Protein backbone atom coordinates (compact mmCIF):
# COMPACT_ATOMS: atom_id res chain seq x y z
CA UNK A 1 0.00 0.00 0.00
CA UNK A 2 1.31 3.44 -0.95
CA UNK A 3 0.76 6.76 0.75
CA UNK A 4 -0.28 9.85 -1.19
CA UNK A 5 -0.76 13.43 -0.24
CA UNK A 6 -3.81 14.92 -1.93
CA UNK A 7 -4.01 18.68 -2.34
CA UNK A 8 -7.46 19.98 -3.24
CA UNK A 9 -8.13 23.56 -4.25
CA UNK A 10 -11.77 24.59 -4.41
CA UNK A 11 -13.11 27.72 -6.07
CA UNK A 12 -16.54 29.03 -6.92
CA UNK A 13 -17.58 28.19 -10.48
CA UNK A 14 -16.77 30.81 -13.10
CA UNK A 15 -20.41 31.78 -13.63
CA UNK A 16 -20.98 32.50 -9.93
CA UNK A 17 -20.26 35.97 -8.63
CA UNK A 18 -17.41 35.73 -6.13
CA UNK A 19 -18.08 38.77 -3.96
CA UNK A 20 -14.99 38.24 -1.80
CA UNK A 21 -12.82 38.03 -4.91
CA UNK A 22 -14.39 41.22 -6.31
CA UNK A 23 -13.81 43.08 -3.04
CA UNK A 24 -10.14 42.06 -2.97
CA UNK A 25 -9.77 42.99 -6.64
CA UNK A 26 -11.09 46.50 -5.87
CA UNK A 27 -8.67 46.79 -2.97
CA UNK A 28 -5.76 45.67 -5.19
CA UNK A 29 -6.71 48.26 -7.81
CA UNK A 30 -6.76 50.96 -5.17
CA UNK A 31 -3.13 49.94 -4.43
CA UNK A 32 -2.33 50.41 -8.14
CA UNK A 33 -2.25 46.72 -8.95
CA UNK A 34 -4.44 47.40 -11.96
CA UNK A 35 -2.78 44.59 -13.87
CA UNK A 36 -4.20 42.01 -11.39
CA UNK A 37 -7.72 40.97 -12.34
CA UNK A 38 -10.19 38.10 -11.98
CA UNK A 39 -9.44 37.47 -8.31
CA UNK A 40 -11.13 34.29 -7.06
CA UNK A 41 -11.19 33.18 -3.44
CA UNK A 42 -11.24 29.52 -2.62
CA UNK A 43 -10.47 26.83 -0.09
CA UNK A 44 -7.50 24.52 0.18
CA UNK A 45 -7.71 21.04 1.69
CA UNK A 46 -4.89 18.55 2.27
CA UNK A 47 -5.43 14.85 2.96
CA UNK A 48 -3.35 11.70 3.20
CA UNK A 49 -4.61 8.71 1.24
CA UNK A 50 -3.54 5.08 1.46
CA UNK A 51 -4.05 3.38 -1.88
CA UNK A 52 -2.47 0.79 -4.12
CA UNK A 53 -1.76 3.23 -6.91
CA UNK A 54 -2.29 6.81 -8.11
CA UNK A 55 -5.45 5.97 -10.09
CA UNK A 56 -7.19 4.52 -7.05
CA UNK A 57 -6.07 7.43 -4.84
CA UNK A 58 -7.35 9.89 -7.46
CA UNK A 59 -10.70 8.10 -7.73
CA UNK A 60 -11.19 7.96 -3.96
CA UNK A 61 -10.40 11.63 -3.50
CA UNK A 62 -12.62 12.68 -6.42
CA UNK A 63 -15.48 10.70 -4.93
CA UNK A 64 -14.94 12.39 -1.55
CA UNK A 65 -14.85 15.81 -3.23
CA UNK A 66 -18.13 15.19 -5.03
CA UNK A 67 -19.80 13.88 -1.90
CA UNK A 68 -18.52 16.27 0.76
CA UNK A 69 -15.38 18.33 0.22
CA UNK A 70 -16.85 20.47 -2.60
CA UNK A 71 -20.41 21.37 -3.52
CA UNK A 72 -20.63 20.58 -7.24
CA UNK A 73 -23.59 22.96 -7.67
CA UNK A 74 -21.39 25.99 -7.05
CA UNK A 75 -17.77 24.85 -6.78
CA UNK A 76 -15.04 23.46 -9.00
CA UNK A 77 -12.09 21.59 -7.55
CA UNK A 78 -8.63 20.61 -8.69
CA UNK A 79 -6.67 17.73 -7.21
CA UNK A 80 -2.90 17.41 -7.09
CA UNK A 81 -1.57 14.04 -5.87
CA UNK A 82 1.95 13.37 -4.67
CA UNK A 83 3.23 10.01 -3.62
CA UNK A 84 4.94 10.09 -0.24
CA UNK A 85 8.15 8.07 -0.51
Amino acid at each position, binding site marked *: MKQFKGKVSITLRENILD*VQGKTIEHALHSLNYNDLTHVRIGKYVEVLISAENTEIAQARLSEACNQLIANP*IIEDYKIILEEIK
Partner: protein
Amino acid sequence: MKFGIVVFPGSNCDHDAYYSVTGNLGYSAEYLWHKDTTIPKDIDCIILPGGFSYGDYLRCGAIARFSPLMNEVIKFANNGGYIIGICNGFQILTESGLLPGTLLRNENLKFICKDVFLKVENNSTPFTNKFKSDSIIRIPIAHGEGNYYADDSTVEKLENENQIVFRYTNEKGVADKSFNPNGSINNIAGIISSNGRILGMMPHPERYCDDLLGCSDGTSVFHSIANNFIK
Protein backbone atom coordinates in the same frame (compact mmCIF):
# COMPACT_ATOMS: atom_id res chain seq x y z
CA MET B 1 -49.75 16.83 16.42
CA LYS B 2 -46.12 16.48 17.45
CA PHE B 3 -43.01 18.21 16.22
CA GLY B 4 -39.52 16.69 16.39
CA ILE B 5 -36.77 19.29 16.68
CA VAL B 6 -33.32 18.08 15.65
CA VAL B 7 -30.46 19.24 17.84
CA PHE B 8 -27.03 19.36 16.19
CA PRO B 9 -23.89 20.54 17.94
CA GLY B 10 -24.11 24.27 17.27
CA SER B 11 -27.88 24.52 16.80
CA ASN B 12 -29.05 27.63 18.62
CA CYS B 13 -32.68 28.10 17.55
CA ASP B 14 -33.80 24.68 18.77
CA HIS B 15 -35.11 26.09 22.04
CA ASP B 16 -36.85 28.97 20.28
CA ALA B 17 -38.58 26.45 18.02
CA TYR B 18 -39.56 24.29 21.02
CA TYR B 19 -40.86 27.27 22.98
CA SER B 20 -42.86 28.54 20.00
CA VAL B 21 -44.62 25.34 19.07
CA THR B 22 -45.29 24.22 22.64
CA GLY B 23 -45.53 27.21 24.97
CA ASN B 24 -46.94 29.66 22.47
CA LEU B 25 -48.99 27.45 20.20
CA GLY B 26 -49.85 24.48 22.41
CA TYR B 27 -48.58 21.60 20.28
CA SER B 28 -46.32 18.86 21.57
CA ALA B 29 -42.68 18.57 20.64
CA GLU B 30 -39.54 16.71 21.54
CA TYR B 31 -35.87 17.19 20.80
CA LEU B 32 -34.16 14.65 18.56
CA TRP B 33 -30.44 14.21 19.14
CA HIS B 34 -28.24 14.24 16.03
CA LYS B 35 -26.61 10.94 17.01
CA ASP B 36 -29.91 9.08 17.29
CA THR B 37 -30.59 6.47 14.68
CA THR B 38 -34.37 6.39 14.90
CA ILE B 39 -37.15 8.94 14.70
CA PRO B 40 -40.00 8.20 17.15
CA LYS B 41 -43.13 6.95 15.36
CA ASP B 42 -45.33 9.70 16.77
CA ILE B 43 -43.41 12.58 15.14
CA ASP B 44 -45.55 14.28 12.48
CA CYS B 45 -43.20 17.05 11.40
CA ILE B 46 -39.46 17.54 11.78
CA ILE B 47 -37.98 20.96 12.40
CA LEU B 48 -34.35 21.49 11.37
CA PRO B 49 -33.60 24.58 13.43
CA GLY B 50 -31.32 27.54 12.85
CA GLY B 51 -27.82 27.90 14.23
CA PHE B 52 -24.30 27.00 13.23
CA SER B 53 -24.28 23.22 13.13
CA TYR B 54 -20.73 21.88 13.36
CA GLY B 55 -19.47 25.45 13.46
CA ASP B 56 -20.40 25.94 9.78
CA TYR B 57 -17.15 24.11 8.99
CA LEU B 58 -16.42 23.51 5.30
CA ARG B 59 -19.85 24.83 4.19
CA CYS B 60 -22.98 25.62 6.20
CA GLY B 61 -24.87 22.37 6.74
CA ALA B 62 -22.28 20.21 4.94
CA ILE B 63 -21.25 18.20 8.01
CA ALA B 64 -24.69 18.07 9.64
CA ARG B 65 -25.98 16.43 6.49
CA PHE B 66 -23.92 13.32 7.34
CA SER B 67 -24.92 13.04 11.01
CA PRO B 68 -26.62 9.73 11.87
CA LEU B 69 -30.07 11.21 12.41
CA MET B 70 -30.03 12.89 8.99
CA ASN B 71 -30.05 9.47 7.33
CA GLU B 72 -33.33 8.87 9.16
CA VAL B 73 -34.59 12.35 8.25
CA ILE B 74 -33.93 11.56 4.56
CA LYS B 75 -35.88 8.29 4.92
CA PHE B 76 -38.65 10.23 6.69
CA ALA B 77 -38.68 12.64 3.73
CA ASN B 78 -38.74 9.82 1.19
CA ASN B 79 -41.78 8.40 2.97
CA GLY B 80 -43.58 11.71 2.51
CA GLY B 81 -42.89 13.16 5.96
CA TYR B 82 -43.21 16.88 6.66
CA ILE B 83 -39.98 18.78 7.26
CA ILE B 84 -39.34 22.46 7.81
CA GLY B 85 -35.76 23.73 7.70
CA ILE B 86 -35.20 27.22 9.04
CA CYS B 87 -32.00 29.14 8.26
CA ASN B 88 -29.22 26.61 8.98
CA GLY B 89 -31.97 24.00 8.61
CA PHE B 90 -32.57 25.24 5.05
CA GLN B 91 -28.83 24.99 4.37
CA ILE B 92 -28.84 21.39 5.66
CA LEU B 93 -31.80 20.56 3.39
CA THR B 94 -29.98 21.83 0.28
CA GLU B 95 -26.75 20.06 1.27
CA SER B 96 -28.78 16.86 1.71
CA GLY B 97 -30.29 17.21 -1.73
CA LEU B 98 -33.79 17.30 -0.22
CA LEU B 99 -34.24 20.76 -1.71
CA PRO B 100 -32.59 22.06 -4.90
CA GLY B 101 -29.96 24.81 -5.09
CA THR B 102 -27.71 26.12 -2.37
CA LEU B 103 -27.10 29.17 -0.16
CA LEU B 104 -24.14 31.43 -0.97
CA ARG B 105 -22.47 34.16 1.07
CA ASN B 106 -24.63 37.28 1.36
CA GLU B 107 -23.83 39.59 -1.53
CA ASN B 108 -22.63 42.34 0.84
CA LEU B 109 -20.46 39.82 2.77
CA LYS B 110 -22.13 40.85 6.03
CA PHE B 111 -24.03 38.86 8.60
CA ILE B 112 -27.51 40.41 8.43
CA CYS B 113 -29.76 40.42 11.47
CA LYS B 114 -32.97 42.40 10.96
CA ASP B 115 -36.69 42.19 10.29
CA VAL B 116 -37.71 41.78 6.66
CA PHE B 117 -41.05 41.70 4.87
CA LEU B 118 -42.01 38.55 3.01
CA LYS B 119 -44.76 37.93 0.54
CA VAL B 120 -46.50 34.59 0.89
CA GLU B 121 -46.39 33.59 -2.77
CA ASN B 122 -48.15 30.28 -2.36
CA ASN B 123 -50.71 29.80 0.40
CA SER B 124 -51.86 26.37 -0.71
CA THR B 125 -48.91 24.49 0.81
CA PRO B 126 -48.99 22.44 4.05
CA PHE B 127 -46.84 25.20 5.60
CA THR B 128 -48.84 28.26 4.53
CA ASN B 129 -52.51 27.20 4.39
CA LYS B 130 -53.37 29.52 7.32
CA PHE B 131 -52.12 32.61 5.46
CA LYS B 132 -54.41 34.64 3.22
CA SER B 133 -53.22 34.73 -0.37
CA ASP B 134 -50.52 37.31 -1.07
CA SER B 135 -50.13 38.08 2.66
CA ILE B 136 -47.21 40.31 3.59
CA ILE B 137 -45.59 39.22 6.84
CA ARG B 138 -42.74 40.53 8.96
CA ILE B 139 -40.16 37.94 10.02
CA PRO B 140 -36.55 38.34 11.20
CA ILE B 141 -33.53 37.09 9.29
CA ALA B 142 -30.15 36.36 10.89
CA HIS B 143 -27.63 34.86 8.51
CA GLY B 144 -24.34 35.32 6.70
CA GLU B 145 -25.05 32.81 3.94
CA GLY B 146 -28.63 33.18 2.80
CA ASN B 147 -28.11 34.14 -0.81
CA TYR B 148 -30.16 31.47 -2.57
CA TYR B 149 -28.61 30.19 -5.78
CA ALA B 150 -29.68 27.56 -8.27
CA ASP B 151 -29.03 27.13 -11.99
CA ASP B 152 -31.42 28.75 -14.47
CA SER B 153 -33.43 25.63 -15.24
CA THR B 154 -33.95 24.89 -11.53
CA VAL B 155 -35.11 28.44 -10.84
CA GLU B 156 -37.44 28.29 -13.84
CA LYS B 157 -38.95 25.06 -12.53
CA LEU B 158 -39.37 26.54 -9.03
CA GLU B 159 -41.13 29.57 -10.54
CA ASN B 160 -43.35 27.58 -12.91
CA GLU B 161 -44.39 25.01 -10.33
CA ASN B 162 -45.18 27.49 -7.56
CA GLN B 163 -42.39 26.15 -5.38
CA ILE B 164 -41.28 29.61 -4.29
CA VAL B 165 -43.27 30.07 -1.12
CA PHE B 166 -41.76 33.24 0.37
CA ARG B 167 -40.11 36.18 -1.38
CA TYR B 168 -38.34 39.22 0.11
CA THR B 169 -40.44 42.33 -0.55
CA ASN B 170 -41.26 45.68 0.97
CA GLU B 171 -44.32 46.12 3.19
CA LYS B 172 -46.47 46.53 0.07
CA GLY B 173 -45.28 43.28 -1.49
CA VAL B 174 -42.96 44.78 -4.11
CA ALA B 175 -40.16 42.29 -4.75
CA ASP B 176 -37.40 44.29 -6.38
CA LYS B 177 -33.65 44.29 -5.76
CA SER B 178 -33.75 47.11 -3.22
CA PHE B 179 -35.74 44.89 -0.83
CA ASN B 180 -33.48 41.89 -1.32
CA PRO B 181 -31.26 41.66 1.77
CA ASN B 182 -28.76 39.07 0.59
CA GLY B 183 -28.66 38.89 -3.22
CA SER B 184 -30.88 35.81 -3.43
CA ILE B 185 -32.03 34.93 -6.98
CA ASN B 186 -35.51 36.34 -7.70
CA ASN B 187 -35.72 37.53 -4.06
CA ILE B 188 -36.27 33.91 -2.95
CA ALA B 189 -36.62 33.56 0.83
CA GLY B 190 -38.22 30.12 1.01
CA ILE B 191 -38.93 27.18 -1.30
CA ILE B 192 -40.84 23.94 -1.12
CA SER B 193 -40.06 20.49 -2.51
CA SER B 194 -41.93 19.27 -5.57
CA ASN B 195 -44.04 16.92 -3.42
CA GLY B 196 -44.95 19.87 -1.18
CA ARG B 197 -43.77 18.22 2.04
CA ILE B 198 -40.41 19.92 2.64
CA LEU B 199 -40.05 23.65 3.21
CA GLY B 200 -36.77 25.53 3.52
CA MET B 201 -36.67 29.19 4.47
CA MET B 202 -33.95 31.59 5.63
CA PRO B 203 -36.21 33.85 7.79
CA HIS B 204 -37.08 32.71 11.31
CA PRO B 205 -40.85 32.30 11.88
CA GLU B 206 -40.19 30.71 15.30
CA ARG B 207 -38.77 34.02 16.54
CA TYR B 208 -42.07 35.81 15.90
CA CYS B 209 -44.61 33.59 17.58
CA ASP B 210 -45.35 35.73 20.61
CA ASP B 211 -46.94 39.21 20.72
CA LEU B 212 -44.70 39.95 23.71
CA LEU B 213 -41.79 39.86 21.26
CA GLY B 214 -43.42 42.51 19.10
CA CYS B 215 -44.83 40.35 16.33
CA SER B 216 -46.54 37.00 15.90
CA ASP B 217 -46.55 36.69 12.11
CA GLY B 218 -44.62 33.43 12.37
CA THR B 219 -47.40 31.54 14.16
CA SER B 220 -49.33 30.83 10.95
CA VAL B 221 -46.46 28.71 9.62
CA PHE B 222 -46.75 26.28 12.55
CA HIS B 223 -50.58 26.46 12.70
CA SER B 224 -50.59 25.64 8.98
CA ILE B 225 -48.45 22.54 9.59
CA ALA B 226 -50.71 21.43 12.44
CA ASN B 227 -53.74 22.04 10.24
CA ASN B 228 -52.65 19.04 8.14
CA PHE B 229 -53.02 16.77 11.16
CA ILE B 230 -55.75 18.28 13.33
CA LYS B 231 -59.09 18.21 11.56
